[in-house]
């Protein structure tokens, strides 16, 4: 729906009109461009975006409407009864070519060094609709090539095609007016508003919506070509909002995260902090199981862990605690809770997580853990808090810990510490046994966000080193402790989670999704 | 120009046997139900008006994602009438099997062996259905879309005294 535009006053009934000679019917309120998209008719555009208002500045979407002397922008015009639209006449094709010629007139020949190459809308539309050689033999207008706009963004003013999508993202999504157009005609430039920088917390969305390579992310520029990236759908682990994302990875390394459309959660956007959460996946990972700080095999580490935990349990289950993290997937939390109750026979299950942070009313939650809701639903009312854990440790009530997920600064009073963790943190150094944990982008699993939606993660990478998904480690510990669990894959664990928690009993595991290479895929713009 | 072939097929066979026909880029083609593969091929060879007596090609297409997954594709030519046709038959993944046409055209022998080797489609009634391009101990059917382009096969060593 065209956001930000006042709804036209039309009757509630469907609109009957003709597009390209075929009679069609559409709900009232759509624009012609949206109507064409619904029936699969391709109309090129630059400045229109489904999540932003439509200013009709680029004029690329012009179509002919019977009765109008000049072509009309289809992104702005609502459908009306008895309207006759033509999108495939010679005149419309000529107009498209002419608009592209204007747009390309001063465009720098930067494709070999431009990040957007391969996912550039200008390249795509030129190739699909124009394909004529240049008529311009003169020089091009020169502008600034590397402008530092703010915290995350670099601007190349020559590449900018003046579509104003970035300005509308700042105004309408981030609600800060950071960017403006300056000057006119072929001297028109994108620049920051007087006295401002582009530093709103949603600035990296401008890089996504920019049809060309004018706005580039400092984090991603020159790091990887678009067509070498493989896209996998997932969920951002930055906070409890759970924005839907795509992981773009090449050669088993994540290069960037981009938002994925979910009208109910994050629409088309995500915040900058969330985009940078992928960095922890490749830093300082625990690669191999450790016993007392020395790398060893999984078999030996599991045996030792089971022995230690079994010892602690047999001495007194009340001194044995299991610490879970709100950063873990539903499957991991469920498996370890079950381990705690059935095999370790303790009811001291603590839930910790990252501390609260800043929030706003756009997308960002104060709760910086992706799965607090899921953990609380699965753990049940007997789940204890981080404050409880601190108190119990200081009081010496708990002397043995199975620590899963994020680290807790290990107190010296612990006699037994088995850590299942992803990074080489202080708990690993202090633990008797440390088992490596695969992180969110390496596993199939699910998070439950603050709205109670269960959202699916797909594995984009192979687990780092020898790390394994958490639920799998729980299964092997359980078997080492004598229980005969039979989970074969994450989907089975998920099935039991849904069976146990009535609130999310209708959640669906979803279809298998193979990573898609960005090559030959249409531009993401 | 080869429309006579499609007309004769429509006259001789019913809709459940010839599933679809068409003409694209000057190629006439007909989609055959796999159970009638042999009957249709024999008719096209023996009918006086189609006279598709020369066997040209037989191969498979892996249409991964579609059910049935494989298409067995055959091209026939008539040296007398100078027209040709493409016949397709959809073969499912779970039981990729279709009749062999070796008794109609002896040349189909090697082409069917190749389709079996590279796609795993079995030809019922073939006298000697074994691999032709790959070595006998090869694992998998390489032209399938889910067979990786790069990989390793088990290394083999010939034991002394072993027969081919």
């Amino acid at each position: 729906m065209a956001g930000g535009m006042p709804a036209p006053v039309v009757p509630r009934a469907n609109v009957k009109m003709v597009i390209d000679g075929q009679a069609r019917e559409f709900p009232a309120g759509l624009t012609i461009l949206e109507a064409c998209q619904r029936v699969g008719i391709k109309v090129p555009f630059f400045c229109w975006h489904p999540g932003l208002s439509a200013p009709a500045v680029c004029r690329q979407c012009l179509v002919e409407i019977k009765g109008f002397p000049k072509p009309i922008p289809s992104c702005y015009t609502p459908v009306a009864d008895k309207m006759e639209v033509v999108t495939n006449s010679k005149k419309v094709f000529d107009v498209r070519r002419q608009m592209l010629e204007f747009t390309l007139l001063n465009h720098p020949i930067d494709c070999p060094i431009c990040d957007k190459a391969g996912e550039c809308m200008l390249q795509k539309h030129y190739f699909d609709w124009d394909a004529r050689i240049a008529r311009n033999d003169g020089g091009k207008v020169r502008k600034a090539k590397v402008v530092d706009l703010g915290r995350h963004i670099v601007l190349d003013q020559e590449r900018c095609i003046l579509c104003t999508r970035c300005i509308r993202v700042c105004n309408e999504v981030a609600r800060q007016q950071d960017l403006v157009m300056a000057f006119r005609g072929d001297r028109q430039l994108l620049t920051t508003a007087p006295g401002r920088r582009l530093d709103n917390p949603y600035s990296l969305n401008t890089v996504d919506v920019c049809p060309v390579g004018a706005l580039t992310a400092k984090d991603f520029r020159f790091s990887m070509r678009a067509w070498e990236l493989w896209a996998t759908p997932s969920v951002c682990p930055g906070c409890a909002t759970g924005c839907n994302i795509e992981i773009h990875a090449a050669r088993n390394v994540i290069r960037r995260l981009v938002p994925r459309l979910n009208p109910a959660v994050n629409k088309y956007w995500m915040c900058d902090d969330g985009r940078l959460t992928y960095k922890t996946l490749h830093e300082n990972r625990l690669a191999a199981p450790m016993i007392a700080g020395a790398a060893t095999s999984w078999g030996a580490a599991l045996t030792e862990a089971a022995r230690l935990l079994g010892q602690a349990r047999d001495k007194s289950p009340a001194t044995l605690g299991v610490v879970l993290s709100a950063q873990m997937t539903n499957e991991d939390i469920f498996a370890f809770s079950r381990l705690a109750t059935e095999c370790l026979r303790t009811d001291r299950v603590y839930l910790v997580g990252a501390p609260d942070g800043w929030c706003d009313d756009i997308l960002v939650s104060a709760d910086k853990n992706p799965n607090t809701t899921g953990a609380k639903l699965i753990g049940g009312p007997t789940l204890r808090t981080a404050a409880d854990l601190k108190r119990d440790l200081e009081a010496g009530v708990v002397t043995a810990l199975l620590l899963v997920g994020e680290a807790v600064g290990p107190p010296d009073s612990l006699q037994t510490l088995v850590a299942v963790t992803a990074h080489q943190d202080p708990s690993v150094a202090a633990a008797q046994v440390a088992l490596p944990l695969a992180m969110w982008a390496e596993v199939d699993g699910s998070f439950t966000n603050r709205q109670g939606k269960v959202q699916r993660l797909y594995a984009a990478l192979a687990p780092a080193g020898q790390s394994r998904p958490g639920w799998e480690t729980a299964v092997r510990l359980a078997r080492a402790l004598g229980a005969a669990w039979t989970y074969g894959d994450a989907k089975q664990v998920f099935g039991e989670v849904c069976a146990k928690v009535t609130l999310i009993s209708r959640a669906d595991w979803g279809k298998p999704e193979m990573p898609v290479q960005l090559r030959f895929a249409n531009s993401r713009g | 120009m080869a429309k006579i072939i499609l007309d004769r097929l429509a006259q001789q066979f019913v809709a459940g046997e010839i599933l679809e026909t068409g003409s694209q880029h000057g190629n006439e083609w007909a989609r055959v139900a796999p159970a009638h593969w042999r009957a249709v091929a024999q008719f096209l060879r023996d009918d006086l008006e189609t006279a598709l007596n020369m066997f040209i090609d037989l191969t498979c297409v892996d249409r991964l994602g579609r059910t049935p997954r494989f298409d067995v594709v055959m091209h026939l030519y008539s040296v007398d009438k100078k027209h040709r046709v493409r016949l397709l038959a959809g073969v499912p993944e779970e039981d990729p099997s279709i009749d062999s046409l070796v008794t109609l055209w002896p040349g189909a022998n090697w082409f069917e062996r190749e389709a079996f080797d590279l796609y795993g489609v079995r030809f019922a009634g073939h006298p000697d259905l074994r691999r032709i391009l790959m070595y006998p101990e090869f694992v998998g059917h390489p032209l399938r879309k889910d067979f990786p382009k790069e990989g390793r096969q088990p290394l083999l060593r010939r034991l002394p005294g072993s027969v081919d």
Partner: protein
Amino acid sequence: MDDPSQTARRVVIGFGDAANLPEDDELPTESMPLNMGPSHPAMHGTVRMVLEVDGEKIRSADVQVGYLHRCFEKEAENASWTQIFPYTDRLNYVSPMLNNVGYALAVEKLLDIDKRIPERAQFIRVIVGEISRITDHLTCLAASAMELAAFTVFFYLMKAREWLWELLEELSGARLTHSYVRIGGVVADLTDDFCPKLRDILRRCRASIDDVDKMLTSNRIFRDRMDGIGIITRDDALGWGLTGPVGRSTGLAYDVRKDHPYLVYDRFDFDVPVGSKGDNFDRYAVRLEEMRQSMRILEQAMDLLPAGPVLIDDARVALPPKREVYNTIESMIAHFKLIMDGIVVPPGEIYSFTEGGNGELGFYIVSNGTGQPWKCRVRPPCFANLAVLNKLLPGLFIADLVPTFGMINMIGGECDR
């Protein structure tokens, strides 16, 4: 194997006349498995024949191919349309231009630009194609003659082939792996002195071929080795799908250039030699005469060669000139998209066939609308031609196998792909 102690046998010693042996006594024989190839001087292009021989006579034969399988189809499914041209060079590697041209025609039909290929490009494709056909036949005759101990013939024909390949090297940069053809035309125009050089080479080639004709065609030894051996009937040709010189030697008058003309073949005056007996000698004679006819086509093509561009002027199909690419954004984008995404071929299927050196060279291409093919199958003429050997060999002597196999002209690159 038989246990010697079980069978009563009489060993015949001495110079007794075998014909005088009692009727029910047979000389004991066992058939012997004989392996020819894959590494064998006569097994061109590597092929393995596992023979069961009874003395010198072949009882049964199992022709095993696949030793030169290099996964052409799998690679083609992972390459863009233009990247496949070097792979096609390496199919029938003694007539690579014919493979290039066959593949290009197939893709052009899918793109619906086959009517817009510039005329000069079509003539050039015919010229280089026919040169490749001549080199193909030269190689076949040279190698086969050498195996019958006619070494002089080998050198005469190899020298002729070398002249042609030198000329193609001047044109494309490589003797064999030209990659000269592109979707929409050819990559570059003929060199300035191409035509005079070619005429001179054709004159010398004619002389070489005439010499070989004189040396072999009435040669008693050659005729004895080739006449009546490896007879294929017209019905065999239909049943086994034999085309090209092998098919035409049986009397089956099918040549794609005449029956379904493509490019500008319908403008040339040439004959198609057809044999009558379908034996090895007929295949030799057909190839010899085909070379002369190809030279006729070449002379006419050079006479009629028009001026003009050699590549279609469509930025969605052919790379723009470099000067444009470096200086205008439009051509830069076109170049970029063509290289990175490949030509966007609309979804569809096509079987396009041309006359290769060995027969009907078909390309069955399935496109799913992207810049890479979904399937790119080669219908290899010598795969079908070689299959008939399983039927021909039983009953022949081992010595007959050599010229029979040679005259089938199996090119390993095309057969195994």
